[in-house]
């Protein structure tokens, strides 16, 4: 099934879910965040998109975008079907987790949570993956001031490990 066919099928099944089809290099479809769990399950089960290659996120001035790159192993697709959700809430961006559908999303959603601060509802273990719990801020956000830290400065933010020294 080509990406255009998938989009047509998606529009037929969920007429209100598609919010935007931006003209980008990759075939991109933006959908309603509240419909993500349902649409993702539909894409996996009905449209053959059985492989979730990437989860990432973009920090725009007015919103966050969470981006999913979907492929089909079964149909041997080489072009990604890029699924996006626009999260207007800059204070507390939250979206449903797709880990129950694609196991490969687990660590990638944790990375997005860690570096971009997006909450994935329904994720089995939403903890920071690269930085430690307690690190001040989310470094990939545009409002994060990238500066150097001293060891002493970060020491109080670390989890206490009594056997460390």
């Amino acid at each position, binding site marked *: 099934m080509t990406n255009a066919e998938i989009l047509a099928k998606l529009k037929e099944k969920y007429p209100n879910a598609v919010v935007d089809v931006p003209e980008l290099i990759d075939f991109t479809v933006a959908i309603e965040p509240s419909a993500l769990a349902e649409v993702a399950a539909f894409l996996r089960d009905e449209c053959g998109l059985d492989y979730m290659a990437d989860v990432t996120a973009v920090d725009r001035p007015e919103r966050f975008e969470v981006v999913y790159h979907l492929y089909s192993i079964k149909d041997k697709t080489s072009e990604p079907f890029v699924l996006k959700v626009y999260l207007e809430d800059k204070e507390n961006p939250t979206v449903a987790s797709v880990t129950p559908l694609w196991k490969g999303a687990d660590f990638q959603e944790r990375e997005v949570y860690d570096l971009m601060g997006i909450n994935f509802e329904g994720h089995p273990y939403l903890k920071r993956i690269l930085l430690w719990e307690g690190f001040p801020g989310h470094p990939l956000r545009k409002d*994060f001031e990238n*500066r*150097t*830290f001293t*060891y*002493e400065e*970060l020491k109080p933010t*670390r989890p206490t490990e009594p056997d460390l020294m």
Partner: protein
Amino acid sequence: MSEEEMIEEQLKNNIFLTTVDAVYNWGRKGSVWPVMFGLACCAIEMIGAASARYDFSRFGMEIMRASPRQADLMIVAGTVVHKMAPQVLRIYNQMPEPKYVLAMGTCATSGGPFPGYAVLQGIDEILPVDVYVPGCPPRPEALMQGFMKLHDDIMKQSIKTVSWYQKEEPA
């Protein structure tokens, strides 16, 4: 033959006079064992320095100890990120005295090309560094120059004043 003549005769036959410090330090500098531990690309050069072409076993340091408890020298080879820093400190704290630290490469020296949130800006923030080896990464020759500088430092120490033989804990 008088006693003095005997001594003089003996001195001609392979008896040398030296100081305790010189012998003691000569022995120590010829058996500095590094911890087997690398953090980034500098570790590749360190491995290069260990293997046949450069071969730092010529300095008596052929055994890279896998346990810090059997090592004298810590070669901090690579970028120390903040997440790794407590573990680096932990390895250092497990080493017995006398112990030395060699900061290999720009990253371990000053953070190098990574002035960001993730990277410790120089290992000397948390460890007492004896030798800094510049380079990105330093070639094996540079690392061995660093070893020789360390040997010079070891030769300058005196058994009377080194901290690990003092009754009081060093500050």
